[in-house]
């Protein structure tokens, strides 16, 4: 029996097919509500972000200062009891100019995620955050940046309490 092209796979359906009633489909939304236990160290970190302070953890054995803080040193396997305040300034270790959003929409002005080595922490110890208030093409490795915080009333104990880092 000749089937011709009737069962040929379509590359993709145009979005309009879902709106003009030409195509039947079901729509569903999964309940993906989650709660992630942040533990003692990240809990302290988020609580201090609400106060406008970035904290790190210092190992009493190797004297390394880590950010975000943690309760044991991965190098020495020793518990950490020293949490210290750090600066809200730092240096860009690496960055990316991102012209698509998380849900794959094209954008004209890029988001700039970067790893920022925080001043006060050990060398090359940093956090991932965004860079703002800057010409995207002027961003470079080694650039000095400073955190831009939400107002104290807006802060909620979240990494987004820092809006972004901008050039010093």
């Amino acid at each position, binding site marked *: *029996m000749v*089937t011709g092209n*009737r*069962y040929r796979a379509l590359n993709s*359906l145009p979005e309009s097919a*879902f709106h003009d009633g030409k*195509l*039947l*489909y*079901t*729509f*569903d*939304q*999964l309940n*993906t*509500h*989650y*709660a*992630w*236990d*942040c533990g*003692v160290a990240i*809990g*302290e970190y*988020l*609580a*201090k972000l609400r106060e406008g302070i970035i*904290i790190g953890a210092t190992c009493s054995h190797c004297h390394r200062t880590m950010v975000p803080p943690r309760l044991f040193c991965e190098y020495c396997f020793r518990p950490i009891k*020293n*949490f*210290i*305040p750090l600066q809200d300034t730092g240096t860009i270790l690496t960055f990316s100019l991102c012209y698509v959003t998380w*849900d794959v929409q094209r954008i004209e002005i890029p988001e700039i995620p970067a790893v920022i080595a925080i001043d006060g922490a050990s060398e090359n110890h940093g956090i991932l955050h965004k860079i703002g208030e800057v010409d995207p093409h002027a961003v470079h490795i080694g650039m000095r940046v400073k955190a831009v915080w939400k107002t104290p009333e807006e802060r909620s*104990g*979240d990494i987004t309490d820092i809006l972004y880092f901008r050039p010093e």
Partner: protein
Amino acid sequence: MYPFLHPFDRPSHYEGLFPVTNRYTFGISGEKFFRALKDDGVILGTHCPNCNKLYVPGISFCNECLLELEDWRVVENVGTVVTFTILNKNLDGSQRLDPEIVAFIQMGDGGFVHRLAEIDPKSVFIGMQVAAVIKEPEERIGSILDIRYFKPI
């Protein structure tokens, strides 16, 4: 150096929601089946002349001889209860006041998992003859729930 905060003074967990949505299209034969259910209020099956089987809902190829099926037939709205269960609890675990009856109803050589209604749950039995109750044309959206439920004949 900071003393650690009291556990009540620091967040214990971080909450979030992944925005996961999906759209399921029914495919070539599914589209034909649901289009007929929506527009005409009929249940379609396909007949395999080789195996003399009537697939309900209609499919494009015979499961046994892989023949391409083109003989679409309107199936009578009557089926047989093959198996059933009586649900006394809702999806969230709360108690239902009116039990829901879910059954597999054979039609032709296929059938549907669907609701049974207009019947006392205690009187449902395997082998019972039931008929599909189709929604009014303006209510139909092209879903299996365009069959409102099955009721005893």
